[in-house]
């Protein structure tokens, strides 16, 4: 089953913002035991967040926009079904939250569902570490692993005297009847092949077209692509040379305090960043194209818990906010912020810079100086980049994770253990998963 992003963005009625924050904050403080809503009851829900995007950002950027409520969820299957379930399961919660927002249609379940759906902006780019891995599947595989480990702990001496095949047989026998793991969706498992195919076809068309191999129309198109490419490069450099990076070297301390209250308290963290898109159509268009590219890579290539070398992201998304002026980035990740940002710099400078170099904190507070969109500079400027990221960050009011005690690698390993139960080859390697 595919995972889907839901990003419901609604305008908060100015006189209701405090009420809304006062209602949501205690739920966030006690996510498991609060009396209002048990997110764990929604079996299709991996992560969800509620947070306020203020009109004026705490890092002193005045956007002149109204405050928005963002409701982010990462769900198995249909978004519509999740919204229906949510309203049916916690009508009062949904009603109280959205009665604070503009356009609230009243507490009729159907109308409320339509309201949420019509304000769902999904994601311009969406990354899932393990596509097809449902929440229930993740729970089930963790239990299987636990049973295998317990069995080995109790019988290690006897088992370690045997050959891998015999150990495997003993474990399988001990477990009894187990469901087979569900295969990855076709698009994801064959994604790399499709992606490579697409690239090859495109390359051949361009190159061949250029030399007239495929007739005048393709030749014409190839020339057009070349001209557009050169024009893009020229305009881009012109923009880049006029951009000003943020030289205000420190983070806004009050904002940091708010973020620290919710950060690094557990094994996983959630990052929410809202940032202004540089004005003008050129940057917006560039950003949209880059995000479409990242989305394609996420769908086809990065489908095994590894996004460009970063192995700690469960779900991430980029969303251009309504009005095309601001960019939202949200991510659920393992470990500390320092580690996460470090991984961006160490492994994913190109993708990250290609996105964020189109944004700024304010007119003279742009992203660290970048050349050729992503090829040089940008996030490689470690300290400036970290400050930029920090200053764009917002603290969430509510953040829920369905499996706080499992890392991206754990989930992959649990799956490998599960799959190995149904395999007869490479059993010595399989035992290394334990």
């Amino acid at each position, binding site marked *: 089953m595919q995972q889907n992003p839901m990003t419901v963005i609604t305008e908060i009625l100015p006189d209701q913002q405090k009420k809304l924050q006062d209602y949501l904050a205690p739920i966030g403080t006690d996510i498991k035991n609060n009396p209002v809503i048990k997110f764990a009851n929604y079996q299709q829900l991996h992560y969800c967040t509620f947070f306020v995007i203020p009109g004026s950002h705490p890092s002193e950027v005045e956007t002149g926009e109204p405050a928005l409520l963002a409701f982010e969820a990462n769900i198995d299957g249909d978004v519509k079904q999740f919204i229906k379930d949510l309203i049916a399961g916690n009508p009062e919660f949904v009603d109280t939250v959205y009665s604070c927002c503009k356009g609230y249609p009243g507490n009729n379940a159907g109308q409320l569902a339509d309201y949420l759906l019509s304000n769902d902006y999904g994601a311009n780019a969406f990354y899932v570490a393990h596509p097809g891995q449902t929440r229930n599947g993740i729970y089930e595989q963790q239990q299987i692993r636990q049973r295998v480990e317990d069995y*080995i*702990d109790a019988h*290690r*001496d006897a*088992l*370690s005297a*045997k*050959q*891998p095949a015999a*150990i495997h047989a003993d474990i399988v026998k001990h477990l009894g009847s187990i469901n087979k793991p569900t295969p990855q969706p076709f698009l994801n498992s064959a994604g790399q092949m499709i992606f490579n195919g697409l690239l090859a076809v495109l390359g051949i068309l361009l190159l061949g077209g250029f030399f007239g191999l495929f007739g005048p129309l393709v030749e014409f198109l190839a020339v057009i692509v070349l001209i557009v490419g050169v024009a893009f490069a020229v305009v881009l450099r012109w923009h880049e040379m006029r951009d000003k990076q943020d030289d205000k*070297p*420190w*983070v806004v*301390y009050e904002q*940091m305090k708010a973020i*620290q209250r919710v950060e*690094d*308290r557990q*094994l996983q963290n959630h990052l929410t960043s809202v940032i202004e898109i540089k004005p003008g159509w050129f940057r917006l268009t560039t950003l949209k194209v880059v995000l479409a590219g990242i989305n394609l890579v996420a769908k086809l290539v990065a489908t095994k818990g590894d996004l460009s*070398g970063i192995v700690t992201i469960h779900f991430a998304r980029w969303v251009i906010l309504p009005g095309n002026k601001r960019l939202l980035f949200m991510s659920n990740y*393992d*470990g*500390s912020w*320092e*580690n996460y940002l*470090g991984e961006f*710099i*160490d*492994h994913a400078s190109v993708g990250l810079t290609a996105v964020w170099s189109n944004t700024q904190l304010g007119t003279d507070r742009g992203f660290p100086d970048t050349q050729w969109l992503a090829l040089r500079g940008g996030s*490689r*400027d*470690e*300290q400036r980049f970290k400050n930029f990221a920090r200053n764009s960050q917002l603290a969430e009011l509510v953040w829920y994770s369905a499996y706080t*005690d499992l*890392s991206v*690698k*754990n989930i992959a*390993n649990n799956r490998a253990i599960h799959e190995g139960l149904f395999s007869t080859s490479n059993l*010595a390697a399989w*035992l*290394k998963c*334990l």
Partner: protein
Amino acid sequence: MTTIEKLEDVQGIVFSGYNKYMASCSYYLLKIDDAAKTKPWLKNLVEQNQISHGADKPTEETENRLNLAISYSGFEKLQLDQGSLDSFELSFREGMHSEHRSALLGDRGINDPSKWDWGNEASLVDVLFILFSKDDAIHNASRKYHEKAFKGAGLSVVQRLEAGEKKQNEQGFSVEHFGFADGISDPIVDGFPTTIGAGEIATGEFLLGYPNQYDGKLTKLPRLGAAGEAFGKNGTYLVLRQLKQDVGAFWKFMEEEAARQGITADYLASKFVGRWKSGAVVEPHQHTDPNKVDNSFNFTKDPNGVGCPLGSHIRRANPRAVGLGATEAESLKVANRHRILRRGRSYGTFLDNPAQDDGKDRGLVFICLNANIERQFEFVQHTWINNVKFAGLYDEDDPLIGSGVAENRNFTIQDEPLRRRVCGFQQFVTTRGGSYFFLPSLSALGLLGSS
């Protein structure tokens, strides 16, 4: 290769722990009671050339060496303006004992700052004063001299940590209280006078104002008034933690657990550390100490931890070329962006029979230098040492010094065909105090004294 322009401006401890000629060492943790008196004292120390620097290498005749660092509360008391105070990095400003830093460092439960002997809110330390001496007789005289000077300088002693007797193994490595060779793989730093040829780590990782591991960028420099960033240049951040080692409990557990599993206590303890007592890394299918130290390994011959376990202490403290990137080179590049330079010593007397504790306090005065506490010391502590998900593991932290798991600690020993597990052990190392300091250059100390 980077050249350090003025070695005489850099405090000597950056380049050396003075292990060779300075047998005695005291760590004074001081509180400033009267800054008006402290400033002239500081000025005098600099003017009278008492602070050791990088150009005065000790010899057999050298009697003393002295280094000095200041904490955030110390700078506050020395009345730096707010702009200058804000120019220090955030972790330093907040302090090791602060709520957020403690959560990050795993200082909770028995390690909670409220239980520390010093360094918590109730007993903040402003100045760290490290006195090295050639021998005990000279040390006692020097101590008397400086302790008297503290009084005149408006300083009181919060705590004095006395480095204990030094113990060396046959190969010349210092031995820590659990009995293992220590300090084998400190980074070789580019441009340091102790480094022969090109160093493996950029100068700027341990000395501010020089290129760092990010393609030669500079790490943020703290500023002071008219001196600006010149104040921060040639300085670095110093992290101090007093780590108490429960040697008796450690070896008692090793012996009991080893007997239960049918292995030797030394084998089990070595798997915890990742090295044998001699300092040799534990290699796959090796059951006894080869007594031969070769530190040039990168874990590439043991990617699955069959020899040196994935979660062992030395693999966590520096994962080298395995596990942090798609290739060995990439992994090494990442690892090298988080190195720390260790400069501490053991404290307390050594136990003759490690399994029979005498109840005395002993452990490690852990000192490390780094240009960025968040990216170096705190990162190593949080993301490698205390991380229960390190290297794809599930629920175990560093078995030796970790505090990421409160009780019923586990440790997996990778083996073929099946892993071994050690379950339900306690924490053998406890934090008893700690603080973040800034180790200024000599010229910066002079500025502070004259301000």
